[in-house]
């Protein structure tokens, strides 16, 4: 596995508000990496940092082995992105928008190439139409074409299916899978819809309030034999400390003031509980979550708000 994006202890603070906290994750070559979290979880802030739109408060981003902030232009030459809404120049046509953004990427596109990209997103017939006449779904598809126009090896798509109808969502999903499988592209796709991610991502991270909750391969995360275990203790610092030195230290996914999360095999639940009690940890509750969906939904309801550091 060749790492394409390596994010280490990334944080971003806006005044008193901590948007991203100590976030670390790795995207490997050929991955369709799902970046999941509720609205306001910190997905877009992280993506903006990956695209140098925002400077991190701390932490590092390495893309294809090079520091993003010291090799910015070289890295961005191989990166395509659609950030949040697909806002484009509404007074230009679809083909003109593609040409402008291709040339900004240092690439001189031919008419044939522009038409190919438009065909890929089903907009060939609207090549000469101004963007202001486009529906939200059409803009979304054109935004994806803009991200791909200079043939980047890394594509970052922020909520790419927003505003699309079911057929549009299916088409984009097919396109994303094909870009990874047939063209060897690496994709980081953010979404707040777990069901959507399950269908296209190979690996996934869930973030909440700017921090990582869980990361892993989809097949592992959805493995019925493994459960995501939420442990609430009277003193969670002690619980976390113990988990870090226990046999389950590598299973610890997330730990905050009130809760620790581990991903373990179902059969290990009694053992971990017993060991914690024996270690003198006062446990309030131990809740196994069977599916990622259930966990994701419960998480947003149950995890108390974390105070900014």
């Amino acid at each position, binding site marked *: 596995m060749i790492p394409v994006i390596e994010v280490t202890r990334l944080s971003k603070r806006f005044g008193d508000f901590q948007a991203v906290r100590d976030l670390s994750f790795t995207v490997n070559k050929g991955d369709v990496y799902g970046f999941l979290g509720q609205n306001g979880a910190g997905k877009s802030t992280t993506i*903006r940092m990956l*695209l*140098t*739109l*925002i*400077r991190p408060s701390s932490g590092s981003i390495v893309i294809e082995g090079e520091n993003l902030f010291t090799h*910015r*232009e*070289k*890295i*961005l*030459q191989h*990166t395509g*992105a659609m*950030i*949040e*809404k697909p*806002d*484009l*120049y*509404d*007074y*230009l046509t679809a083909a*003109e928008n593609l040409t*402008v*953004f291709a*040339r*900004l*990427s*240092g690439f001189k596109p031919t008419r044939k190439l522009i038409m190919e990209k438009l065909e890929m997103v089903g907009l060939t017939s609207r090549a000469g139409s101004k963007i202001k006449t486009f529906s939200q779904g059409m803009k979304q598809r054109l935004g994806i074409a*803009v991200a791909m126009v200079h043939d980047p090896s890394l594509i970052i798509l922020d909520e790419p299916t927003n505003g699309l109808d079911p057929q549009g969502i299916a088409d984009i999903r097919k396109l994303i899978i094909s870009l990874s499988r047939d063209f060897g592209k690496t994709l980081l796709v953010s979404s707040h819809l777990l069901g959507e991610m399950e269908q296209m991502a190979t690996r996934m991270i869930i973030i909440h309030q700017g921090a990582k909750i869980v990361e892993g391969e989809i097949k592992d995360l959805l493995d019925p034999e493994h459960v995501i275990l939420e442990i609430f203790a009277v003193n969670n610092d002690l619980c976390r400390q113990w988990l870090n030195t226990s046999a389950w230290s590598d299973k610890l996914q997330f730990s905050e003031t009130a809760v620790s999360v581990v991903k373990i095999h179902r059969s290990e639940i009694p053992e971990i509980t017993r060991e914690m009690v024996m270690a003198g940890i006062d446990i309030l509750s131990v809740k196994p979550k069977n599916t990622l969906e259930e966990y994701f939904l419960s998480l947003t309801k149950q995890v108390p708000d974390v105070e900014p550091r």
Partner: protein
Amino acid sequence: MWNLVSLELFKIFRKPRTYIAFAAISAIIGLIQLGFYVDGEAYIKFGMQALSDNFDIEGKVLNGYLLAYIILQTLLIHVPLLIALVAGDMISGEANMGTLRLLVSKPVSRDKLISAKLIASCIYTIMLLIWMAICALFLSILIFGTDDLIIMKSEQVTQILEADSLWRYFAAFGFAALAMITVASLAFFLSIFSENSIGPIIACMSIVIVFTIMNTLNLPIFNQVKPFLFTSHMLAWKGFFDVKINADNEQIIGSIENINAVMKSAGILLIYIVGFWLASIVVFRRKDILS
């Protein structure tokens, strides 16, 4: 760099608002020309009344050169608004449209991006001034013909020979371009701070108006800062129409009475332009793109 500048120019000239300034200038100049074509002789007669009593004035006083001078004097006060319309929209317009984040995520350094946008704004300003010169000077010459240029000031009358007039207009329009680029740079700088173009346009015009008022008021407190205000130097183009005279009280053709003052004003405007450009780079480098 040229690739970036050409892309910015392409975007500027595809925007409908760009042509508002060209249309407005054409309309205003057309209106002034029409007015002078119909009633100009009476207007000039009235204006020259004091002179006619003591002097015999021959030739065509109302000519293309005089009209161009009147237009320049009138329009250069209002053109900053038209310049700010485009320059004030360069960054804030992109932020408002949501395209700024896409633009900044491209493999182009922020310094180059800002510089290319500012250069494009300057080219737009120069094109507007060229258009103004075509309408105000060449069209007026075509309609009203040429003769000596007579300029009446509060305490003196300057007569510039016909053969000595045209180059002064080229110089005046060149200087006016520098003055308008200063306004464009200010509007551009302000546009970095805003996510809609109305703010920078209004802020730019407010600064121009406040500085102009300070220039007009003859108060000691303002007199101290006047030499440093860019608005004090924007009208220095008039210096090109002050002609040196020799010991025999004759005009020296091709001369400028106080070239040093004109050059000093040009230098101060240049310092402002470079200052706004550098400030734009510094601010934009550190800016988090949240739009």
